[in-house]
């Protein structure tokens, strides 16, 4: 039982990071970023390139992932989303664009990094063993705590920095924020870059444990969508809650339901449907975000 909870927390910390980036982009621009999973995979490959090919320390790889993805995110926002949002009659049109970007990133990753599964050597060897009640490799513990530290840093940033305050204001009410002198264009770009950078960071963290391959993008996007549905779209606390809940459900499900075959996700999906029927806006979302 303890093992299940620890596994769930470890998974949840990573999931929450993915969901945070997605929900930040959604709250600022009302864009459902289909390419989020691909950004995460790209982050993994950047870390792989820096660590395994250039032989640099892991932390450099992580920083490189975050920076590359931040640049990608900023460019995507400035040159793609902004003009389309300005010109289109329905804001859903951005979905087509986001899907196009997802395909594009897939193609780029395929051409640049190939279709092979890639991984980097473990950052720390050894396994933590608490009397066979909880067994956890040390590298997973480090990754889990790094993820939690990044989440904490992100919350502090959003809560206390000028940029964070401006972004929260934009998410609440775009018109009012503009009237108060918030530079909408600049902070939308920063927000998008930050969201993408978070996706890149998770990719970089995970490449040490599960490795990374081209096919991981789509399923990661779907999981991220589920998390922000559980927690409520566009709400930071909701994304974190959703991430941990999904991580915990997956961990419990894989243990409890294993005798019935591979139905964990089926059960999670079904319960999500029932949950949404009762509470359409998720745990902490505002109605009709």
């Amino acid at each position, binding site marked *: 039982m303890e093992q299940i909870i620890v596994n769930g927390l470890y998974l949840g910390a990573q999931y929450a990071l993915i969901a945070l980036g997605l929900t930040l982009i959604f709250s600022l621009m009302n864009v459902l970023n289909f390419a989020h999973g691909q950004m995460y995979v790209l982050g993994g490959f950047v870390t792989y390139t820096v660590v395994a090919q250039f032989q640099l320390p892991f932390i450099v790889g992580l920083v490189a992932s975050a920076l590359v993805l931040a640049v990608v995110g900023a460019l995507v926002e400035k040159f793609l989303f902004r003009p389309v949002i300005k*010109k289109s009659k329905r804001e859903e*049109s951005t979905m087509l664009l986001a*899907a196009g970007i997802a*395909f594009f990133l897939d193609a780029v990753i*395929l051409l640049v990094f190939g279709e092979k599964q890639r991984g980097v050597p473990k950052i720390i060897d050894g396994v933590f063993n608490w009397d066979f009640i909880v067994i956890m490799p040390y590298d997973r513990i480090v990754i889990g705590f790094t993820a939690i530290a990044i989440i904490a840093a992100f919350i502090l940033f959003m809560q206390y920095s000028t940029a964070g305050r401006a972004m929260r204001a934009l998410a609440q009410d775009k018109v009012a924020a503009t009237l108060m002198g918030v530079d909408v264009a600049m902070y939308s770009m920063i927000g998008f870059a930050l969201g993408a950078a978070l996706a890149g960071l998770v990719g970089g963290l995970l490449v040490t444990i599960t490795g990374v391959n081209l096919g991981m993008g789509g399923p990661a996007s779907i999981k991220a*969508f589920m998390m922000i549905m559980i927690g409520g779209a566009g709400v930071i606390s909701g994304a974190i809650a959703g991430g941990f809940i999904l991580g915990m459900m997956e961990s419990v499900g894989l243990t409890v339901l294993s005798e019935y075959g591979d139905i964990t996700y089926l059960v999670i999906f079904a319960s*999500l449907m*029932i949950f949404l029927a009762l509470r359409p806006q998720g745990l902490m979302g505002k109605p*009709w*975000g």
Partner: protein
Amino acid sequence: MHNNKFILLALGVIALYVGVPFAIDISGRIDFFYTLTSVALLSIASAGVWLTFYIGRINIGQGAYALAGGYVSAILITQAGMSFWLSLPIAGLFCAVLSVFIGLPILRLRGVYFAMVTLVLTEVMRLVALALPVTQGAKGITSMPLPGELSVFGITLIPDFATLENPKIAFYWMAITIMIIAYAVLWRIVNSRLGHLCRSLQQNEELSASIGVNTAYLRVLAYSISSFFGGIAGASFVSIAQSIYPSSFQVTDSVNFMLNCFLGGLGFVFGPMLGTLILYFGWDLLFTTGQYQLLIYSTLLIMLMLALPNGVLSLFEKKKVGS
């Protein structure tokens, strides 16, 4: 004016039935039959998605119903020995009924919430197909017979496909016939009282509820019609492929159905048809570029979106305003 339109439409239909096969015969690109058949069938599923757009919902779950329809038809044909022509409407009806049960809770959601939950639905259907014993899991259902003969009172309406020397063209005719019927139905719905009510839902659901429109009933109705189209498309697709797997319709397909609608333009009944044609045909033509296929395709998609964010058919709209 009305007469002119009718003649134009009739010419278009004749071109579809006779002109296109003739052109393919001359060019010798027999593979285009399969491409165009696929376009016709996929555009039926897209028509369903378009109808949910029409009530103001973004539907990324059509792949789920296409998969369900395909499996219903496949199971009826292989295990109950039913004729394909009978299984086709049953598959559609099954999806329509299924969508009522799924739609009742989820249609309360709006905007991205509905979009995300339907996206998840596609994944659910794939997992169900993997888990159920009747669908035979990942092995899928294979080596299904071609559609048999359809006769009423001893008169053969449709011959047995297996006896034909060119089943490709038969499938093509079947696909465009279903497509024309589907779009005629769609056009009729849009230009009826039901269509007006749907437009009122699209614009403001609270307001239309407040003047006495039964919004809950209406959106379930529209969603089930949409799913009916999805089921029909899935079942016919299976009859051509003669096999179905849990991965026959996936999240990518659901997303593509939605993209077809966006690309063609959401304000036009024939938008999804055009969108499917452009996307599927474009993808097919780019096959020769090999490993760069996806790169070129997605770049074109992004460029198209930058240039025409309101769909391809919005080009004609602008001209109208200008003149």
